[in-house]
């Protein structure tokens, strides 16, 4: 480590390289393990946004859809800040969608602790779910495909279309 690096680190301008290594690894392994290529992920992201946008207005600049991994379980985590519901104004509500991609036992749909919305769980995340969710609440939606091994992640993304 050079003197410059040391000074930068002490000033908090630069994280320790071990931290960078860990973050980069976690990201790359999440992709390796799920077998999802960037194009597929991008397509899935668009389709998720499309579905969610039918119910609520999303802050498109703040949208974050990424794969995260812990304990050899990879999760698709979508953070979609909601500007307002299509019917009623609900500023500042955030919806979090978690998809269990690989392995079992991953909790889905950690809705942040906002009091108003009830959880409207859309079973398979298809557009058929629209009827179920006609109650016009802006909702954090939990979509969870059958937890299964690698191929299920692809099927899961397809069924969203």
């Amino acid at each position: 480590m050079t003197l410059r690096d040391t000074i930068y680190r002490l000033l908090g301008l630069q994280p320790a390289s071990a931290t960078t290594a860990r973050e980069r690894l976690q990201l790359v392994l999440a992709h390796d393990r799920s077998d999802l290529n960037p194009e597929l992920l991008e397509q899935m992201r668009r389709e998720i946004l499309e579905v969610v946008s039918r119910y609520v207005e999303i802050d498109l600049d703040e949208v974050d859809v990424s794969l995260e991994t812990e304990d050899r379980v990879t999760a698709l985590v979508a953070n979609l800040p909601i500007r307002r519901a299509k019917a009623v104004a609900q500023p500042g509500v955030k919806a979090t969608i978690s998809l269990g991609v690989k392995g079992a036992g991953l909790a889905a749909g950690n809705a942040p602790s906002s009091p108003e919305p009830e959880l409207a769980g859309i079973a398979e995340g298809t557009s058929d779910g629209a009827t179920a969710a006609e109650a016009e609440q802006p909702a954090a939606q939990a979509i969870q495909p059958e937890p299964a091994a690698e191929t299920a992640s692809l099927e899961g993304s397809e069924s969203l279309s």
Partner: protein
Amino acid sequence: MTPHRTRNILICSGKGGVGKTTLTANLGIALARQGVRTAVLDADFGLRNLDLLLGLENRIVFTAQEVLAGSCRLEQALVKHKQEPNLALLPAGNPRMLEWLKPEDMQAIVGMLAPSFDVVLIDCPAGIEDGFKNAVSAAQEAIVITTPEVSAVRDADRVIGLLNIHGIKPIQLVLNRVRPKMMANQEMLSVNDVTDILALPLLGLVVEDEQVIVSTNRGEPLTLSGSGSPAAQAYSNVARRLRGEDVPLPDPAKMGRGLRAKLRGLIKTKIFRQQ
């Protein structure tokens, strides 16, 4: 050791050059010294090196190839280690064997070794192609070795996924080339980082040790001399843990580098409180 159930243990890493063969050689010697009848099987037919690290390269007459072809008996191909008669090497054959070798062949070899050995260590080739698949098919359990570097950890992760698919169990981790000082400075992935990411139980921690290079130069694995070098101790402890002994894992934060470094550290810490 339970009476006669041979443990076939695959030693693999995915990435090359992280210390598979060094671990196989040292673990083989350490187990033999602890009274375990051990065979080391070089499954790296393309780039064999286990013979060299064990210092047995000049004593090879027959290889796994002749054994499989039936042109010699298993006992003729096995090279017994002179100082550690509990250890025998079954050398890899000609690289051209790769063209026809199948998982059944590896299983046949391991099956032949079973009556005379308690443990068979299979030194796996790097990569995840046919050589790896052949080697995996002959094993029931595995030791994955990696270093605290992103590329090695990523490849290890890939291999662990494949081992899971093959139903290998247990899979345990050896973390090699640990540099305690860099870890303390957070300039190297920590032990917890690696075990968390790979989600495997840790079987051993081996610090970076120059003596490893010296020992490979000589063809005398570190565990052979009973040397007190940090890596030699780490390998012996891996062997003991593998046999079910409860040996506590060292804390990298407290690892010195040799006795002299420790003494120097001791003298310094009294006055300055480290560095």
